[in-house]
């Protein structure tokens, strides 16, 4: 039998964040894009104590925990700021989407979603009603993407079963 999940709680800041955890590529990397956004709750209030993890599918050569190289890492981690915002600098992925896990106080098991950087025909997207599909699409402005996570209520992000 598997081990049940428990909340990450409010006090992970001395344990989980690490130096350059959100910088999956160095500044100035030719393939760099940024993904930023805000995590909010069912009342529309910011979630200031969430931890987000981004995964692109490739470990890469930069180092997952040490960020030593000039190359690319496929894993990033970012704790939200007091206004619920987060940021990642990553490399443009090969496919249309990246994977995102959201942990927080009050979230007993992390919620899993996808950030689609391109609106393309896709088995997951195509199975959703338009308004729900829209919750998985990042808004693009050049190399900057915006993706908000709404845990509950109006515009609730589509979360995946895992």
């Amino acid at each position, binding site marked *: *039998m*598997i*081990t*049940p*999940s*428990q*909340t*990450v*709680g*409010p*006090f*992970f*800041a*001395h*344990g*989980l964040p690490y130096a350059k955890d959100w910088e999956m590529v160095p500044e100035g990397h030719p393939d760099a894009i940024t993904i930023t956004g805000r995590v909010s*709750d*069912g*009342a529309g*209030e910011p*979630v200031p104590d969430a931890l987000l*993890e981004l*995964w692109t*599918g*490739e*470990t890469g050569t930069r*180092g*997952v*925990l*040490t960020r030593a190289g000039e190359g690319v890492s*496929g*894993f990033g981690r970012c704790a939200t700021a007091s206004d619920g915002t987060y940021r990642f600098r990553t490399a443009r992925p090969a*496919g249309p*989407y*990246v*994977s995102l*896990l959201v*942990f927080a*106080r*009050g*979230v*007993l*098991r*992390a*919620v*899993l979603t996808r950030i689609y950087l391109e609106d393309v025909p896709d*088995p*997951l997207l195509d*199975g*959703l009603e338009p308004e729900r599909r829209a919750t998985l699409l990042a808004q693009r402005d050049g190399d900057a993407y915006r993706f908000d996570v709404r*845990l*509950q*209520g109006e515009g*609730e*992000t*589509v*979360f*995946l*079963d*895992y």
Partner: protein
Amino acid sequence: MIHPPNLSPDYRSTVLRAPSRPPIAFKTDPDTIELTSPVFGHAEVGALEADLTRQHAGEPIGERIVVTGRVLDETGHPIRNTLVEVWQANAAGRYAHELDQHPAPLDPNFTGAGRCLTDGEGRYRFVTIKPGAYPWRNHHNAWRPAHIHFSVFGTAFTQRLVTQMYFPGDPLFPFDPIMQSVRDPAARERLVAAFDMDTTEPEWALGYRFDVVLGRTPMEDE
């Protein structure tokens, strides 16, 4: 259902944070990125990071313990070279976190965070201090049972697990809505470490064993 339902109203913070709609099943193919997970290099984690009692100039106050166990998949196979991260309160029940306002002493010799990679048998081992119980404001006279937070990766992003390890025989279990959010008593029991005389080291530290079993990957379900 092994995992707790995200809406567990006795744990008040879930009420506005639990998604209201059921999660969507997704089909997998060989390119599905959720089927993979970061691979960690041994050079990325220092050997001393698994000893939470040796991160400062002096020894922390409290009951020194060894916590060890294996990370396994549901079929019992070890998950090797995966990252295990832990964090916890000190012996007085206080976190080294600026927002923890519990009026218990901080320990200048204890931060309470560690990490290691599992070995070839999926085994991890930490040396630490037994954490204290602490109050929280969920309800009147609410106290968290002593626990160590665990974060484990596995081989697929869908196996990613964050959980809490509790200590056997804690009288606070029935009063704790976070632990009780796991509805199945047998599943709840899996959150409790076992006191282990074989892990206990004479004249030095009590030992606890806590295995972490990760779920199947979607690919395996097909």
